[in-house]
């Protein structure tokens, strides 16, 4: 089975290469990849759930806005994302439920401070083998 995502090298930043059988899986895997850059995702449990609804102009914009929303849960609300369940996804809108755990310094080790999710070289595409996305995070 193909890996759900890879973390790629970029001089001043961190890149994510994410795969999925369909758009829902792609967006769900992108959420896991983001958590993995912030902390070790295996150490995050589902303590609370939150409803999310994000819009975009097209697939790349939707992906950036989706990850922006998830990043804000961490940077603005101190919540780490354990997993997400995608309820509905189209090119302009994604509706999902995120399972999150409030950050506790004795439980979670933070690996990277992500400044932002960038549009730099953003790519979301569908091919015969499935969906792929490339996203660069500014750290």
């Amino acid at each position, binding site marked *: 089975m193909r890996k759900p995502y890879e973390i790629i*090298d*970029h*001089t*001043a*930043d*961190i890149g994510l290469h994410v795969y999925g059988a369909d758009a829902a899986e792609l967006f769900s895997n992108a959420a896991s990849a983001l958590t993995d850059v912030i902390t070790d995702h295996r150490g995050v449990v589902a303590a609370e759930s939150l409803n999310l609804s994000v819009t975009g*102009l097209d697939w*790349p*914009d939707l992906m950036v*806005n989706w990850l*922006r929303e998830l990043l*804000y849960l961490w*940077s*603005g609300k*101190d919540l780490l994302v354990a997993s997400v369940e995608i309820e509905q996804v189209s090119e302009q809108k994604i509706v999902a439920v995120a399972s999150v755990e409030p950050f506790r310094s004795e439980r979670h*080790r*933070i*690996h*990277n*401070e992500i*400044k*932002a*999710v*960038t*549009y*730099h*070289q*953003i790519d979301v595409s569908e091919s015969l083998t499935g969906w792929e996305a490339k996203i*660069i995070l*500014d*750290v």
Partner: protein
Amino acid sequence: MELRKIDRYHWEVPKTGRMHVPGMVYATAAMLKESDQKEPLQQVANVATLPGILKASLAMPDMHWGYGFPIGGVAAFDWHTGVVSPGGVGYDINCGVRLASTHLTEKEVRPHLENLVNTLFQNIPTGVGARGPLKLSNQEELQVLREGSRWALRHGYASDEDVQHTEDGGCLPEADPQLLSDRAMERGKKQLGTLGSGNHFLEVGVVDTVFDPSVAGVFGLSEGQITVMLHCGSRGLGYQVCDDFLARMNKQIHQLGIDLPDRQLVCAPIESETGQAYLHAMACAANYAWANRQVLLHRAREVFQRVFDIGPRDLGMRLIYDVCHNIAKKEDHLVEGRQRAVCVHRKGATRAFAPGHPAVCETYRLVGQPVIIPGDMGRASYVLVGTAKAMEETFGSTCHGAGRRLSRKAAKRASKGRAIHRELADKGILVRWTGRGTLAEEMPEAYKDVSEVVDVVHGAGISRKVARLRPMCVIKG
């Protein structure tokens, strides 16, 4: 990409395709041969396609691959016909550096270095998402955003001289906090007085070499003197402002009929409602960053007084200057023989105004603006001075630092099995840090040699070397 050599330090990216102006890169032939130069050169060309760009899309010798704009990029746009781009400023709005001198000497500090670095580390919040001891109320946060360093002055964290010795007096008066999102306001409440992570640091150093004794004298620098350098910015508040406006401009860009080579270059006409809103929101983040660096300097003063058991007068920790290296500003420059109002974007570039410029504080106006260039933690940092040539060629701008050479991952690989802190300690440099990967990612060889970068701007004449500093101890996030 084709490059045309003008002279040893000037390389032109010829105007082709949709470029409105050529690119101009300050570098040596050896620097341009490095494998990582292809992408930033493309970015220099991309910036040249934006509406209203004047003269050239410029890149300093510490140029490297950014998002949208290259890091080390300078671009000026006509105030009436040009655009402003949040990507031309960067996420960390008013990331900058300040340098303070002291009355202490290396001889006096060396025996207490361990105690000093430990006390600094205990008293200055560092690391990912670090919280400051100041939790701001909504009212206080609004004041910080409007007043910058002046807020710090009113609250006893600054002296009058500190404020005068800060670029723009530590306050952009056009700041309008009403334009900030709730998210930006929320993130700003808890991070004032924190250093952050990544390449941000506080470093105690010593003046190792003075190149220009008369200018160094005016700056108040002499060999053997202990200095304190701080590098940080506007923290989460600044990132959020940038992100909010990238999203907002991205929604509007199609109506403007601007065809962008890269979405991260998204922009708005300077005089449009969105363009003005960005500049006034950016000013809030810039003011926050100045207040932040001022509070941190205050903490450093307290630590030094305690460790050396001396009063403020004997310590004499005096702010030499504070520069921002991620900013967009309205300035007047001579373009094609006439004075024009322009919006200068400096992204990983430092203002370097010439002697006599009215924006340079009185203390230094006769010699020119001090420019602070931090290097990596194992080698050196520099103090330069602005020149008339910078006014002519680069809209009064120069380089900002060493620039990364290795990606974070590659740096971690290169450091495997090594104890970077011990290697540094063997050279007499003590380091304290928070994040697990920070030290490896930030080790000296992850960066280009700052001396080579500085030699280019000095050789090209867009700033001049005044003094070199050598690190003694560093705290990092």
